[in-house]
């Protein structure tokens, strides 16, 4: 794995820190690489802006913050408005399609992938696991690490009583990603940002 800078952002309560943490855990603990995660949050416990910065690297990470993110996972319009413009040209943008309208992105060649993670989670019975759906989607779309590594990291991150639900959420997100990866990334500027969804 080369050095990869990732931002995961949304509103408090969506589990964005958990999403980044699972990815970091997969890279550093399961795959024995290096990961550094920093988080920023407002004073609000729920609903406020919430963001995590994650750096994955084959070598120890020095500078703790991302400067030119390769991947962004954005789960709220506020997060999109605040962060999307910072993605590097050619980067990969993952959005929660029901919560984020991708428009006016002033960066070239960004590959955009959208998933109705919250809806999928609700179909599984718990909206709470939308972040794990997103984690699965992230794994499939970015291919940054083995599917099993991420899946293991999910299991290691949740209480045993929720393991089954979270595995399902992860798989649902992953499969969704695989399926839609073949149909190509959403072209920036297309009118309907949910074009690749069902």
């Amino acid at each position, binding site marked *: 794995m080369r050095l990869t800078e990732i931002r995961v952002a949304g509103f408090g309560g969506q589990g964005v820190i958990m999403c980044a*943490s699972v990815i*970091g*855990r997969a890279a*550093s*603990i399961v795959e024995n690489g*290096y*990961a*550094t*995660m*920093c*988080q*920023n*949050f407002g*004073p609000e416990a729920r609903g406020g802006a919430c963001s995590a910065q994650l750096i994955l690297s084959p070598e120890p*990470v*020095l*500078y*703790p*913050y991302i400067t030119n993110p390769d991947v962004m996972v954005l789960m709220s319009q506020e997060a999109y408005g605040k962060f999307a413009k910072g993605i590097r040209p050619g980067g990969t943008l993952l959005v929660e399609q029901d919560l984020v309208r991708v428009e006016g992105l002033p960066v070239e060649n960004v590959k955009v992938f959208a998933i109705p993670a919250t809806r999928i989670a609700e179909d599984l019975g718990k909206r709470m696991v939308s972040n794990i759906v997103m984690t699965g989607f992230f794994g499939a779309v970015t291919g940054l690490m083995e599917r099993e590594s991420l899946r293991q*990291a999910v299991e290691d991150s949740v209480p045993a009583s929720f393991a089954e639900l979270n595995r399902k959420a992860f798989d649902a997100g992953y499969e969704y990603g695989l399926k839609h990866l073949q149909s190509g990334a959403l072209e920036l500027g297309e009118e309907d940002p949910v074009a690749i969804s069902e």
Partner: protein
Amino acid sequence: MHADPVGVLTGAHFMDGDHAACEGAIAAGARFAAGYPITPSTEVVERFSNRAPRIGATFIQMEDELAASIAILGAVWGGVKAFTVTSGPGFSLMMEHIGYAVMTETPCVFIDVQRGGPSTGLPTLPAQADMMQVKWGSHGDYEIIALCPNSPQECFDLTIQAFNLSEKYRVPVFVMMDEVVGHMTEKVVIPSADKIEVEPRHFTTKDKSSFQLYAPVGEEQTPEMTKVGEGYNVHVTGLTHDERGYPNMTPAVQERMVKRLVTKIRDNAEKICIVEQNQVEGADVVVVSYGITSRVAQRAVEMARAEGLKVGTLRLITAWPFPEHIFRALAPKVKGMVVAELNLGQMVREVSRCAEGKCRVAAVGHAGGTVHNPQDILKAIQEVAR
């Protein structure tokens, strides 16, 4: 001796610095913590409150930081290893008990997760601006030990080290984290208990007639310890006291006692101090930093090296006692030193003092709230190298 396996979570964890520091304290043998909630350090005691009843330890949330910082001292005299944790305003409130711990030679650990100040400042954002306060914030003359981790792994490792040093020298030891290190999550490897060296409390074996609570022993100049209930009928006071612990407010006893409190650290500074040096031999410029800033500075150093500059790095793992001997030896050999820290000039004063005018010393200050832009450090390196 080795760590008690009951408290040791052996394995690889993806953990933030606050949690890692808590695990370090537990591995070191801490079985008591008192705290008062304050950002960005609260996670340390939150974790301890969760872990304590499963490992035979006690946590109490006190009514303020004054209470937390002296409850731990009470617990130490009750016979356990104890620590407290705080940030910014809470650290200011704890100052009196730093002095009390120094004066009564009570081994204990304070963890300060530094945030932007003064006053309420930046509760959720980093600074390294309590570095002078930890050394000078309590009244009177004293020496303490302060360590600066730059990663969650070091939060674990150095918290153990802090407990070990506190027992060895009967002195409060400070883990001077910063918000970035405290809230940063990385891999933390916790070894098995038999691989963790733990300094036990040096309880006296002398009998009541020969034991003196403040009679120095060995080259550490540190007295042996005891606890309540052993029949020694100890007297512990913050007043100037003699070797028995009895108040004796004469200039002669003050001289003898305060001098020893200071020299037990100063005379052993070379043993206590840990610094990390990289490519210092033959360097024109040495970049001095600590905590999170050391990682940011490294990026600047790499940029400077790419330009062909001869740059070394020196990281303070021990900030106090200040590793004077190293700086005094280094200063004549280099063009200059660049001191980067998340404050507007604190440890740089020590660097300047020890450089004694034999090289340039440039400060790269920062008011806090985020880390340096590496470009700013690079500029200072270029300037000093010129």
